[in-house]
């Protein structure tokens, strides 16, 4: 049985988009696991209906597996779930109004659920996170130095890293790496050539732009919710 992952992020309270994605996914045969990599909430619109749906899926919904993202981190900070810290970075960069909009967009009854979300998932040899293994707010993009990407992969000890924070969709393979290391200590000198096996970082997009990943073939497909889904999916692996 073909196994695919649907990787979604940046819904920011948009239930309509979530329903479109659910509708898309129902058309795909085989096993699909739905991961929501954070930013379910945001300051732009009321997020309660989406949060309620994620926590209480409809009977025919794919069960969403959620982690927290940057906006969840901000509301947890502002609501006192991270000790004495508050959402100061958000306050400085976006202003007090945005902080208020965010806290008004999410009913307090959802905060415990948000606080219980994990930083990320490790499935098979893949890390599924919002930002990076260093920070939920870190943007990984095609322009991020490969050395940094390799480090973020190494920190999670995974071969593929799915990230959402940049909102971009990309599939960057680190096909080969080599570095020579020479260490001198009180026991003498030793040299070692270190190589890295093939690894990849995948940007999954945000909002209507999401990613399908075929676990068996390592293929990604970048999809826009509701946009010629059936035709595009026919070209993706064996359907």
């Amino acid at each position, binding site marked *: 049985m073909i196994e695919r992952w649907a990787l979604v992020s940046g819904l920011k309270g948009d239930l309509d988009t979530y329903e479109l994605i659910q509708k898309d996914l129902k058309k795909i045969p085989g096993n699909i696991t739905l991961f929501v990599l954070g930013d379910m909430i945001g300051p732009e619109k009321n997020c309660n209906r989406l949060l309620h749906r994620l926590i209480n899926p409809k009977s025919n919904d794919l069960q969403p597996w959620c982690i927290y993202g940057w906006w969840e981190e901000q509301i947890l900070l502002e609501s006192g779930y991270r000790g004495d810290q508050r959402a100061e970075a958000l306050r400085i960069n976006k202003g007090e109004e945005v902080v208020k909009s965010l806290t008004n967009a999410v009913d307090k009854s959802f905060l415990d659920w948000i606080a219980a979300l994990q930083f990320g998932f490790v499935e098979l040899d893949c890390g599924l996170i919002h930002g990076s293994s260093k920070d939920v707010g870190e943007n990984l993009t095609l322009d991020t130095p490969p050395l940094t990407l390799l480090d973020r992969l190494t920190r999670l000890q995974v071969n593929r890293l799915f990230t959402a924070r940049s909102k971009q969709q990309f599939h960057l393979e680190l096909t080969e790496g080599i570095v020579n*290391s*020479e260490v001198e*200590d009180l026991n003498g000198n030793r040299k070692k050539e270190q190589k890295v096996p093939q690894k990849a970082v995948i940007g999954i997009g945000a909002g209507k732009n999401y990613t399908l990943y075929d676990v068996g073939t390592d293929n990604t497909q970048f999809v826009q919710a509701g946009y010629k889904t059936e035709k595009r999916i026919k070209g993706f692996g064996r359907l």
Partner: protein
Amino acid sequence: MNQAVISCLHANLPAVEAVLKDIELQGITNITCLGDLVGYGPQPNEVIELIRDKEIPTCQGCWDEDVVDGLDACDCSYPSQLAEKRGHFAHQWTTDKLTTENKDYLANLPYSIRKDKCLFVHGSPNSQHEYLLPDMDAFAALERVENARAEILFCGHTHQPYIRELADGSIAVKIKNAVPKDTQEKEIQLPMRRIVNAGSVGEPRHGGTKATYVVYNDVTNEVKIREVEYDIELTCKAIIDAGLPPIFAWRLKNGFEFAEQAEDASHVCER
């Protein structure tokens, strides 16, 4: 010009005095200290005051930070509950002994010192609690230096002195699923970088009993590890007299300090 880099003094006054004497005998006046002035050892105020008197530029170490801010490292720092218990006892003992003035001094130490192409830190550019071990993943090690925009990274924290050169590196990348459809490939050459660990003056963990530090020549780029003998018995007696755990003295005397090394020392503390 030669400069000396010292680290992890750990309130061991006889060791600090011996190392400073050795540096003086070589005619070196440029000294940088990578922190951990206190912790484990019996003379925290004396060591701080010696460093202050000599106006040696110093980074804040993990012990210096914790003594000021309270223990806020996660449990990764210790390999066992017994080691953690001893560490907490030493932390409390040191906190009680330090004068307010010396606590203020530790509180105001910088996390890093930059001198041209050299960056000086206690653990790593990321954290005072991160261990850069000599055989850690070479790419991760190179990332620490490169992302800190340094050519040579001086660190301590592991108590094991070493010089590591990372050279002739490259990473090949390929963009799959690109828009437009053509696959883009490129190879990135990595710069040569060095990590120099100064070891420990006050609590060596290199398998011997001698204090260690390094001498760096910024003209020839040569780095030498120096080993210095000191009056260990004097420090051991002071540890026992102070009521600190006797194992701290035993470890110094026998040159066996690996007991306190975390099992996964490459773990990054997520405080």
